[in-house]
């Protein structure tokens, strides 16, 4: 079943046309990976889905409903969480305040909080610390934890491994696998090894267009296609 459907999306930022024609479907469950070179339009795609930049023309359908013109806050309330590339952490708030802000009721569900602390033990250790004092990896954990503090249907995650130590990347992969058991993840990633270990389906964006889409297994097996679209060994 299709959870999210992007149709002929075109997005301009100021006078620059960044996305020219983006169409792909994200099935419910598992991890869908968006790959592409730097500046291809991956982040713009996520921001357009979230309503932070408005596509025109084109449409974003979530569970069959057209959410293209909805306000970002209303899109989030429909069950889409967003983990931006810069993590979007509120540095002056404590770890717990960052998390509680992401709840609709203003209260923690103890079971979900325990699950988050099991996934990311550092967040329990530093729960009263101001978020600016956390390390880069801990901030990324907090950003992901904020997205799963309440049940969501879809999480958009933008380059979560950027600048992280290999041990943290491994921990993050484990966490994503567990999250993907109950929530669909749309992951933008440049680290192909990381993306391949998680993704079931994928699409490659090149110069604001979808250059390829299909299963990750097939893409991983086709090194010529990888070279052409991602310049992995070019």
């Amino acid at each position, binding site marked *: 079943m299709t959870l999210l459907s992007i149709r002929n999306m075109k997005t301009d930022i100021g006078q620059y046309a960044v996305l020219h024609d983006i169409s792909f479907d994200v099935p419910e469950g598992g991890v869908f990976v968006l790959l592409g070179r730097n500046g291809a339009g991956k982040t713009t795609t996520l921001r357009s889905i979230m309503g932070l930049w408005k596509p025109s023309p084109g449409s974003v359908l979530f569970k069959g409903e057209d959410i293209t013109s909805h*306000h970002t806050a209303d899109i989030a309330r429909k069950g889409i*969480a967003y983990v931006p590339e810069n993590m979007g952490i*509120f540095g002056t708030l404590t770890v717990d305040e960052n998390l509680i802000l992401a709840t609709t009721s203003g209260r923690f569900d103890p079971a979900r909080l325990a699950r988050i602390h099991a996934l990311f033990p550092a967040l329990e250790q530093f729960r009263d610390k101001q978020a600016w004092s956390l390390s880069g990896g801990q901030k990324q954990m907090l950003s992901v934890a904020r997205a799963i503090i309440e049940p969501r249907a879809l999480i958009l995650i933008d380059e979560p491994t950027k600048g992280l130590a290999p041990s943290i990347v491994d921990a993050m992969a484990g966490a994503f696998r567990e999250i993907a058991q109950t929530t669909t993840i749309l992951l933008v990633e440049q680290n192909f090894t990381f993306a391949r270990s998680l993704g079931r389906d994928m699409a490659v964006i090149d110069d604001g267009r979808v250059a390829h889409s299909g299963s990750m297994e097939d893409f991983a097996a086709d090194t010529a296609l990888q070279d052409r679209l991602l310049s992995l060994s070019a």
Partner: protein
Amino acid sequence: MNALTETLGQKLGRAGGVNLLPLVVAAVAFVLIGAPSSWVTLTVAGLAMGMMLFLMASGLSLVFGLMDVLNFGHSAFVSFGAFISATVLAGLGGWLTADSWVLNSLALAAAYLAAICFGLVAGWFFETVIIKPVYRDHLRQILITIGAMIVAEQTILAFWGGTPLSVARPNFLEGSWIIGDVSIEIYRAFAFALGAVVFIMLYLVLNRTRIGLLIRAGVENREMVEALGFRVDRLFVGVFMLGSALAALGGAMWAGYETLITPALGGQLMIVVFIVVIIGGLGSIEGTLLGAILVGLMTNYIGFLAPKLALASNMILMVAILLWRPNGLRPAVK
């Protein structure tokens, strides 16, 4: 040498850091002034002035921090607050001069309440009609809010005339307390106490409630708060109304402090209010209080020690602090 500076910095940070600045300024002034009684009088005057400036500046700081809106029309709320409260006090003259502190207090409360209500309604109107169409466009914001300030000033002129208006004070706030050879004006002590109560309430709202959490988060990263499912634009209307009401209350208190007000009052105070906001760090309530207290103390100390430098003292203070901390003393975003 670097290690020594770092250790000293850490020690100062643990002791209170920049929060100690008013104490340092007061201690230096104590040595320079020499006479303890004058120093106490000036310090109380500085603290009272600082608290009133804090009320006027806090809303402006939050509005800029939350929505990146430069509101030069903020002075209109200060001026209207002063004139409305003066008019209410004049209308309740019998209660003001009565030999009953209950009636005195009721008259003062009615004047402040009228100013606050005006601030809330005018703030809603100002945000909806004037500010909303120019979000994210600083040049238009400056032009339209300066225009609104001029219109507001002219409206005051049309209603109250250009002659300075005398402001009555309630009986129980007249006079001074004499302790030894120290004289403390009662109204100044009252202004300080009322400002402190408002600061504590504001601090509790910002730090102990969900709406406060949203405001603090919005000041830091508005887009992310929206991505978490909250309409910051709706929150902003509330913050703008609150800021306008606080400015009107500050104006009402300033009217009682000066006892003679003109339509230019708000415009004249705005320069100092902007200095307070810049010194404190945009979007930070604690920073605004710190900046306001520093400006209040410096104005009074320099006015006594070197009257010719009084006008320039706040500018010098601002330049010195910005050279040391370009984002202000306690910026909201780290």
